[in-house]
């Protein structure tokens, strides 16, 4: 069975742990964590991921900049990207989706909801 690799880009260790904890219920899953956009790009260059989850407000490089850079990379042109953020405004949502995000989830998150969305995008039953 294939192994799915998911990158979580989030400056809050609490959130990283919460997302990872929710996703670890899936079989054959490898989770890699990054603490900001730059760290995220570094991790993306070291491995190939099936799905990327990122926050927006982060030091060094924010999540929106990261999404726009990821979409310019031919390898990650169609990889699903989820935004998990505190920003609940419609403008933020539209901006993120316009840049190429596939899903926009606002905090506080529900672990089962994120899990179901990941399963859906990765076609895991």
């Amino acid at each position: 069975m294939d192994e799915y690799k998911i990158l979580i880009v989030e400056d809050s260790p609490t959130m990283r742990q919460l997302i990872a904890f929710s996703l670890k219920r899936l079989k054959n899953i490898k989770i890699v964590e990054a603490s900001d956009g730059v760290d995220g790009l570094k991790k993306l260059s070291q491995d190939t991921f099936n799905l990327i989850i990122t926050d927006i407000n982060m030091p060094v490089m924010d999540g929106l900049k990261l999404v726009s850079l990821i979409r310019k990379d031919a390898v990650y042109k169609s990889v699903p990207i989820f935004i998990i953020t505190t920003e609940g405004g419609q403008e933020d949502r539209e901006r993120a989706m316009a840049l190429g995000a596939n899903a926009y989830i606002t905090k506080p998150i529900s672990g089962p909801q994120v899990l179901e969305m990941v399963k859906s995008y990765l076609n895991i039953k």
Partner: protein
Amino acid sequence: MEKKDEKERNIFERAEEFLQVFKKGAEFTQELLRTNEQLRYRVLQLEEENKSLKSSPKIPDKQYEELAKQIEALKQEREEINKRIKEIENENRDFAQRYVEVEEENNNLANLYIASYQLHSTLDFKEVLQIILEIIINLIGAEEFGIFLLDEKTHELKIMASEGIDETQVPSVTMGVGTIGRVAKSGEPYFMEDISDPSKINWLNPMVAIPLKIKEHVIGVIVIYKLLQQKKNFTPLDHELFTLLAGHAATAIFSSKLYSESERKLSTIQGFIDLLTK
């Protein structure tokens, strides 16, 4: 002459009437013949049917009763199966509902476990405060809030960490005074009844105030002024997180403060020892 003509006319009229009656009689006879033909044909048909019925195998009465019994039994069985299917469908609905509840409970436990794990992951005072802020932003969904800590010397509560607010604008709070001061004194949490009206909220009157307690000793208060725009009200999980913060955050803050002080003292003593031994 006239009489003769009238007589002839009468004869013609009567002949005409007779002809009419005769025609009707002929038609009636024809009709009777046709009906007779049809009846003959029907009789033949019935005779044929009768013959074929006689030639078909006759089901004995006993076997017929057996079959009737079997049909009845099958009907009952079908009813039983239908009843069982309905019961299973109801059970499935119950299981689905239970699954959702278990998932929710699991999610809540994950949140509480992670919050607790993070709170006790460090002995660095600033890191502990940062973790508390992270928990309140990410797990509870607050936008503007602060952590007040009690100054044991002045008996005043001073804001030590915050998010979304200008700390210089927040005044110190005296024990027992105002909502925050009363929460610190009583050790009982405060929740504003109607959080939808922001006009009632100010620096000294927040929507939520959670005392940070070590046993019965209050060391500070977590104060929330505003929730994220997508967060409309508090959930049962939020209340569990508040309870967890009240105890675990207080312990984490207290331990990290003690550790920082002991580290500072140790460093001073080490400095003295180094001076004396040189």
